[in-house]
């Protein structure tokens, strides 16, 4: 008998073991906990359809539905008794922080709803209560709600009341908790036990639809214009969450998610969507200092210290270290700043010397041009001086002969005044040209600069050839960013050279100036009809003190080069085509790319 038992029982046990091993891979049971906020019976009714649908979508799995209250669900998660939970947004956030669950889907009211804006609150009053028009009028009233823990049923409205400066915790308004179901809140408002009541979003519409309430019997306070499908008094928050427990295998989570998303909407039109961002719920709970943020209410120092002492100690240590580091860096910065300041001072001195040298060179060049033009300048000055002398002598003669009429005196005096002003103007022009001056950069039309230089040139020397300006429509328009006087100095130099060259060749053809574009710069060409120069002399033209003229200083073109380079350009000389003659070409910066009007002092 003993052997028979062994013979029979052993294979049975082995079979049982084998069965157990087979059933463990994969786990057939999927344990889902739901928040039963209106009692187990209600929850069974509400979620059974979902469970049936899910079971269809997950063949080979055995779905087990369990109901919990808020604390019970947390405890079950802690014990590892659940694979998934379905709960309201506020509770989800609490569990996320405390039990490490992670959402895989969010419940939405219908396909068009944004998962992040599903749950909300409507604060209702009897329509005839004309003394309560908006949320702010609730101060000193009573407010019915199902429970302090209800998210859409209380907390959302609570947060909104706080936002407008009311505090139900201090009885403004005084909350009256009726417990579930929410129909009790409606009753409390209807029979006057409470001045107002909090309903979750869209419940009012449903009650009006099924005839429980007469449309317009209850009025929603401070309805939000940005929510269309239901009347609400506060912003909408994400819907209920379907979340996986921390130990749930990712493959299972994925399968359940796929199943949830492929479900068709239930009888109430609700369906599951991709998980929403629950951050606004966090903020709300933090603001209300409830759920995971309930500790914020513990303001007693000892409890804070108990909770945070490692952090506080760490922070103090870090502050100390940071202070020491800052002192060290400050010391280093001061030393380096000193070194840098010294280096910059030296650099600035050098730069100032260079600039001074260049300005002296400019000055010398202008003086040399003035020297060459002095004869004609004297002539220019002689005209007004001679006129003044004539008037003065005439007045004396008339006075002596007793024929001085008041009108004549007036005419002469006016002429003398205007001629002396003219002479002063000529002198002022020379002085402005000859004196040392600051660097200037201004926006100017290049064609106007050329024409102005041409006029100066014609006025300074008798019998000079004309200056012809060639400019096409493409190059007209953009201004150049220059020192106008320096550019005129370059042009006058080139004109003077051109004329000298043409006089040598006995030619009085116009000097030709062409304006063009060279990339982002303006290009100017000055062409003469002189005899030209051999290539080796052309190359040396821009050297200081190199000259081909018997009375020349050899500074003009080297100054031109300095000026053009100070404008960031270059100056070149080539043989004219067709010859003979030379073409001087230089470029100037366009005003567009330069900064707004600025003046750099030396």
């Amino acid at each position, binding site marked *: 008998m003993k052997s028979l038992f062994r013979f029979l029982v052993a294979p049975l046990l082995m079979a049982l073991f084998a069965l157990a091993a087979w059933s463990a891979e994969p786990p057939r049971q999927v344990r889902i906990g739901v928040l039963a906020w209106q009692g187990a019976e209600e929850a069974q009714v509400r979620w059974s359809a979902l469970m049936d649908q899910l079971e269809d979508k997950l063949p080979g799995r055995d779905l087990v539905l369990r109901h919990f209250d808020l604390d019970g669900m947390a405890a079950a998660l802690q014990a590892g008794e659940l694979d998934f939970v379905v709960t309201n947004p506020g509770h989800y956030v609490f569990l996320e922080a405390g039990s490490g669950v992670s959402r895989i889907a969010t419940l939405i009211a219908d396909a068009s709803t944004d998962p992040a804006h599903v749950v909300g609150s409507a604060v209702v009053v009897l329509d005839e209560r004309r003394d309560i028009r908006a949320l702010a009028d609730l101060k000193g009233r009573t407010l019915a709600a199902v429970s302090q823990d209800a998210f859409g049923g209380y907390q959302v409205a609570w947060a909104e009341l706080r936002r407008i400066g009311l505090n139900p915790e201090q009885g403004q308004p005084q909350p009256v908790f009726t417990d579930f179901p929410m129909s009790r809140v409606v009753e409390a408002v209807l029979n006057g036990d409470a001045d107002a009541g909090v309903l979750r979003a869209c419940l009012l519409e449903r009650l009006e639809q099924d005839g429980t309430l007469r449309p317009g019997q209850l009025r929603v306070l401070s309805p939000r214009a940005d929510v269309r499908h239901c009347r609400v008094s506060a912003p909408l928050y994400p819907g209920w969450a379907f979340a996986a427990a921390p130990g749930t295998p990712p493959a299972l989570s994925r399968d359940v998610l796929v199943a949830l998303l492929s479900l068709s909407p239930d009888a109430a039109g609700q369906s599951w969507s991709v998980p929403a961002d629950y951050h606004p719920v966090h903020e709300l709970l933090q603001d209300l200092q409830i759920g995971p943020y309930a500790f914020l209410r513990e303001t007693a120092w000892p409890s804070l210290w108990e909770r945070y002492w490692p952090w506080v100690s760490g922070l103090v240590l870090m502050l100390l270290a940071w202070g020491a580091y800052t002192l060290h860096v400050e010391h280093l910065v001061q030393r380096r700043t000193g070194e840098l300041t010294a280096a910059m001072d030296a650099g600035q001195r050098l730069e100032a010397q260079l600039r001074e040298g260049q300005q002296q060179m400019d000055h010398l060049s202008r003086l040399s041009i003035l020297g060459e033009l002095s*004869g*004609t300048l*004297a*002539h220019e000055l*002689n*005209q*007004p*001086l*001679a*006129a*003044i*002398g*004539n*008037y003065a*002598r*005439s*007045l004396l*003669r*008339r006075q002596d*002969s007793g*024929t001085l009429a008041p009108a*004549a005196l007036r*005419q*002469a005096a006016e*002429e003398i005044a*205007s*001629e002396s002003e*003219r002479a002063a103007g000529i002198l002022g022009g020379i002085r402005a040209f000859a004196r040392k001056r600051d660097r200037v950069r201004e926006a100017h039309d290049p064609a106007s600069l050329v024409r102005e230089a041409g006029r100066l040139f014609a006025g300074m020397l*008798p019998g000079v050839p004309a200056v012809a300006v060639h400019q096409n429509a493409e190059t007209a328009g953009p201004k150049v960013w220059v020192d106008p006087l320096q550019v005129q100095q370059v042009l006058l130099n080139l004109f003077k050279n051109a004329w000298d060259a043409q006089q040598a060749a006995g030619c009085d053809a116009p000097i030709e100036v062409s304006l063009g574009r060279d990339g982002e710069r303006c290009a100017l060409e000055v062409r003469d009809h002189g005899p030209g120069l051999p290539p080796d002399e052309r190359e040396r033209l821009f050297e200081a003190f190199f000259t081909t003229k018997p009375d020349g200083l050899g500074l003009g073109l080297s100054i031109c080069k300095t000026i053009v380079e100070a404008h960031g350009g270059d100056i070149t000389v080539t043989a004219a085509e067709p010859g003979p003659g030379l073409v001087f070409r230089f470029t100037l910066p366009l005003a567009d790319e330069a900064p707004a009007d600025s003046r750099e002092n030396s």
Partner: protein
Amino acid sequence: MTASPDMPVIHVVDDEAPFRRSLLFLLESVGWQAVGHESAEAFLAVAPAFPAAGGCIVLDIRMPRVSGLELQRRLQAAGSSFPVIFMTGHGDVELAVQAMKDGALDFLQKPFKDQLFLDAVERAVQVSLERHASQRRQGEAQDILARLSAREREVARLLALGLANKEVARLLGISDNTVHVHRQHVMEKTATGSAADLARLILRADPRGLD
């Protein structure tokens, strides 16, 4: 200003308006009648007649388009008897020399003293009057000689050269008596009493009349 016919007129041609006006003012200060012109073309457009009381032109040598020298040439070609005073600027001495060769009366280098200028104008007006007077005398002499017949003019020229009646008769191939009659007519028509008077009359009408 309207020029009065019994006064000399000074024309000032200079493109530099303030300076031109100052010269006019100066000229008027000493009682001259003066007119300004802004260019050679403007002067030629007005083409002022030479006044019986005399006058002159003060001309800037360097002007745009038609220069002072060119204006002087055109005036001479038109037989103008206006004397010309040139004003020159710095470095225009060569031009001034050319102007003198071309018959300018005087030149002043700017800037000039007012007295120098007024003296030059005074001289020029004097010259213009002399020129005008000599022109008038020449015209009168020509008018007198025009009254003679061709044969009488021939006889008068030979008599003015100091030839006797017989020599004139032989040269012209006519009788002594005929020469005597012509001589009587010439003396009556020209109101001259001697061969010497006759010679002066002929030279007044044409300085080269006895060559």
